[in-house]
């Protein structure tokens, strides 16, 4: 069915081209400046701030719903018992679950705390509220922001190892670029041989270790740590273990590293407030 011509706006194509051009410029600026963190657009921060209550509410509601769901399951299990026994069992089961959860939380938090104390830098704890680990651009969002002292280029880790670095902050949230993201690069060294290289994300589950000469001694199982030479990541944080080394086509090996962190299961994280490179140095960096 044809639509009368007066329904169609007069110059939508011109507007469309203008909008696309503006978006392309915005995108180019964003992709060009993403490596030096602080220069991310104000616009992005504003949009994220405006909509930040939504993920926070979803996280809270999801947690509450999970609690209710678990409570319901516990009750279902007790239905077949007699009334007195059921009350007793339900009570003990609930108590047991709570204690086990508390014990597991304590173990995890203790290991996090012990890990945090290794660093000279100030640290703070945070919780993840969004995990985008399967998409092309891998990131997580944590519930700590600039009000809690989190700044761009702060390092995020947990007891297993390096997670990534903060690339954007709002007052109460921070976006963290994962080490597996295509655009993340970390100065690193092999613990056993002290050979230095650069770990880069490749968008997959593993990361690649570059700049390792083909004659260098490197074996599967070698542990890879941050080298502390890139001005962002402090020295000594575990990145992962070498799982494969191939002879590359040139002078360097192709090395695959399995990250130490299972990114799908991140809960609590440590934010390490590193000493930042002065802005004037960042500005003149190549």
């Amino acid at each position: 069915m044809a639509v009368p011509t007066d329904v169609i706006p007069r110059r939508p194509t011109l507007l469309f081209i203008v909008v696309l051009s503006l978006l392309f410029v915005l995108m180019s600026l964003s992709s060009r400046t993403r490596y030096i963190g602080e220069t991310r657009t104000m616009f992005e921060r504003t949009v994220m701030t405006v909509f930040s209550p939504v993920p926070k509410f979803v996280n809270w509601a999801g947690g509450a719903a999970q609690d209710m769901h678990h409570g319901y399951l516990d009750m279902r299990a007790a239905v077949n018992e007699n009334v007195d026994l059921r009350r007793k069992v339900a009570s003990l089961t609930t108590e047991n679950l709570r204690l086990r959860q508390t014990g597991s939380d304590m173990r995890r938090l203790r290991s996090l705390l012990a890990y945090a104390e290794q660093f000279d830098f100030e640290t703070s704890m945070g919780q993840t509220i969004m995990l985008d680990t399967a998409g092309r651009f891998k990131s997580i969002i944590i519930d700590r922001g600039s009000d809690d002292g989190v700044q761009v280029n702060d390092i995020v880790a947990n007891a297993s190892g390096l997670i990534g670095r903060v690339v954007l902050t709002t007052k109460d949230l921070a976006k963290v670029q994962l080490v597996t993201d295509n655009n993340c690069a970390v100065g690193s060294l092999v613990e056993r041989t002290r050979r230095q290289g650069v770990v880069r994300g490749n968008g997959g589950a593993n990361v690649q270790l570059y700049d390792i000469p083909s004659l260098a001694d490197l074996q599967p199982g070698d542990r890879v740590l941050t080298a502390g030479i890139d001005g962002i990541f402090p020295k000594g944080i575990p990145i992962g273990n070498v799982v494969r080394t191939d002879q590359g086509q040139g002078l360097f090996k192709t090395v695959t590293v399995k990250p130490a962190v299972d990114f799908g299961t991140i809960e609590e994280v440590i934010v390490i407030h590193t000493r930042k490179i002065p802005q004037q140095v960042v500005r003149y960096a190549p």
Partner: protein
Amino acid sequence: MRWLRFAIGLLIALTLHSLLDSFYPNALAFFNPYVILVVYYSMGGNILGAIVAGVLAGFVQDAFSNAPFGLHAFSLTVCAYVVASINARLALRGSLAFGACLGGAVIVNELVIYVLVNILMKQKIEMFEQALLVKTIFTLLFGMLVYQLLTVFLREEPIEATRNKAVW
């Protein structure tokens, strides 16, 4: 009223995004709620409105992903424009037409992102064809469900609900 509906739709899409990111982090690789929202609003044939809807939905998606800011806004705007242009001339109706537009929009969206990522970031997307196929199927299934539900609950053709006779 149209803007209110769009705002509610955008909040629902972001809620879905947050929900999946929080509890099923892999799900968003196979499904895009923002495309459904944008196609739904573009089916009215109002090109200006569709462009605005594409830009807004894309900005929200960009803000909560690690993509260069504007990437999804660009791709969703292209989808919105194409769907709205077709509907401004043909006034397609019914769930089948919506499904066809949605499927096409998902493919266009992914292709635009593929090209932009190649141009701007000099990166190649791994397993693009497989991801495109799966994303198209799942987004289509979910989009058709949403369309049917809205048709039942709003008791009107959703396309009519978003059509603007004069200007946006």
